[in-house]
């Protein structure tokens, strides 16, 4: 295998990591508050509000029901508006974030719902405000679950970033499609697949290790 291919693959790894981490971070900036809002306005939340909850719930379900590949194409005008072009790894972050944020909101909501209602009641009995309950009780008590959710989301977005390769998104997926699919270079495709598997394993293992380390619920 020549130097050019190696260079290209290294660049692909970089782009893949860039797209994955970029979309996870921006996704959480949007999705985390959204998830908290879902929890707070939900039926058993701190301040139930059926109108807000149902509206958010509806929008989230719509976005989540669109397959990513179709979302990617549907969003091309929007992506072009935001980053100025619709191809390349930076452009791919846009649909990845749009896809990830509602997913993250759901993951966050379900993590927060795991927190024992009794602990929240105890905090209220101490005079905690809703904001304090969110920052000092919910996010702390649910952190293991939140970190697991973060890991799962990262793995999902790694896969989606590869999928964006079909429309020129850059990264390992792009290489796999161009060389493996269009040019029948199975060896290059295999390498990218193996690399994706390795990256996925590393993310999953680190995520599990960290969340276990911060979990004091078990002995």
């Amino acid at each position, binding site marked *: 295998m020549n130097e050019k291919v190696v260079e290209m693959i290294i660049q692909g790894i970089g782009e893949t990591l860039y797209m994955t981490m970029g979309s996870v971070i921006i996704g959480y900036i949007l999705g985390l508050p959204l998830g908290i809002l879902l929890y707070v306005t939900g039926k058993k939340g701190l301040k139930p509000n059926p109108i807000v909850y149902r509206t958010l719930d509806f929008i989230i379900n719509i976005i989540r029901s669109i397959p990513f590949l179709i979302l990617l194409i549907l969003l091309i005008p929007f992506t072009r508006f935001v980053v100025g072009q619709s191809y390349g790894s930076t452009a791919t972050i846009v649909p990845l974030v749009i896809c990830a944020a509602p997913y993250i909101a759901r993951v966050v909501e379900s993590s927060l719902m795991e927190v*024992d209602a*009794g*602990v929240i*009641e*105890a*905090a*209220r*009995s*101490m*005079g*905690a*405000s809703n904001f*304090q309950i969110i920052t*000092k*009780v919910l996010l*702390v*008590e649910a*952190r*293991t679950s939140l970190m697991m959710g973060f890991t799962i989301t990262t793995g999902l977005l790694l896969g989606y970033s590869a999928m964006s390769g079909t429309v020129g998104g850059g990264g390992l997926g792009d290489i796999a499609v161009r060389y493996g699919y269009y040019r029948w270079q199975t060896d290059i495709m295999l390498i990218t697949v193996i690399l994706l598997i390795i990256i996925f394993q590393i993310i999953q293992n680190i995520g599990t290790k960290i969340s276990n380390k*911060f*979990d*004091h*619920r*078990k*002995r």
Partner: protein
Amino acid sequence: MSVIEIKNLTKKFEIDGNTVVALNNINLNIEKGDIFGIIGMSGAGKSTLVRSINYLEKPSEGSVYVDGVNLGKLSEKELRKTRSNIGMIFQNFHLLEQKNVIDNICFPLEIRGVKRADAKRRAKELLELVKLEEKEKAFPSQLSGGQKQRVAIARALATNPEILLCDEATSALDPQTTASILELIKNINETLGITVVIITHQMSVVTTVCKRVAIIDGGNLVEEGLVETIFEHPRTDAAKELISGKKISYTPMKELIADRRIRIVFKENTAYEPVIANVILKVQAPINILKADTKDIGGRAVGEMILGLPDDVEKQEAIITELKNARLIVTEVDYNE
């Protein structure tokens, strides 16, 4: 002055379009420095009542005064401040699982905005009070039930509250641990002068630590008074059931056949005299002891017995007279009990 005053309190819940009255026109005064028991079967409304005291449950009607302040008139912020002056402990402890013991105890102070160093100092004092100094860095999952409740008590006391609410605080604990937790609560009441409100379904908890007790049945306050008075003269079925332990006595009572049955309650010194034997010797008639129990109420031995009397009516009366002469409290037990 009463530190807690509950006036005409009614709480209704809407469940699937039906209105359920959880508490019906409750009036209750709890004096400063008291250990006040609120007892009732599960579903009687006692948990709702205790949550009304710190307004975790807002009453549908009526009002709650703490230290003369009507909680219903307070803003959300003032209410939170009042709440932080009322400690509360729970059946399942409700500790923060991801925080260690000392951080759990610091938590109410953190909410108040107390400096970390000051909070830690206070938490260490409290750890000493609940005798868990060596568990400072342990996490709740590493503690036994009794230890968790001790941490919860320390946490509830962190803000120097005037009132401590205990919601079935010993119901998840074994009898020995229960005794040690009650001892601690009693100790806190005596040394710190904190008013304690204990919610329980166990009469033994009330008789061990409480001075006064209120009995809640079906959302109504049916009896209230000194623990010994209610134990000696239970007026209502709810009180009788709680004292006798419905499950133990209800069915057997019917099976324990005798023409006439009476309940006698022994007070102080009579608990140490062979009263029954004396009566049998004097009247020359057999007495059937159907059930007997002795309880320690505030250091006094108080016993209760259900006796089956012989068929002869004259002898029945003679026995009752003798028992009354021995300064016992005698009441009839009917067959429906």
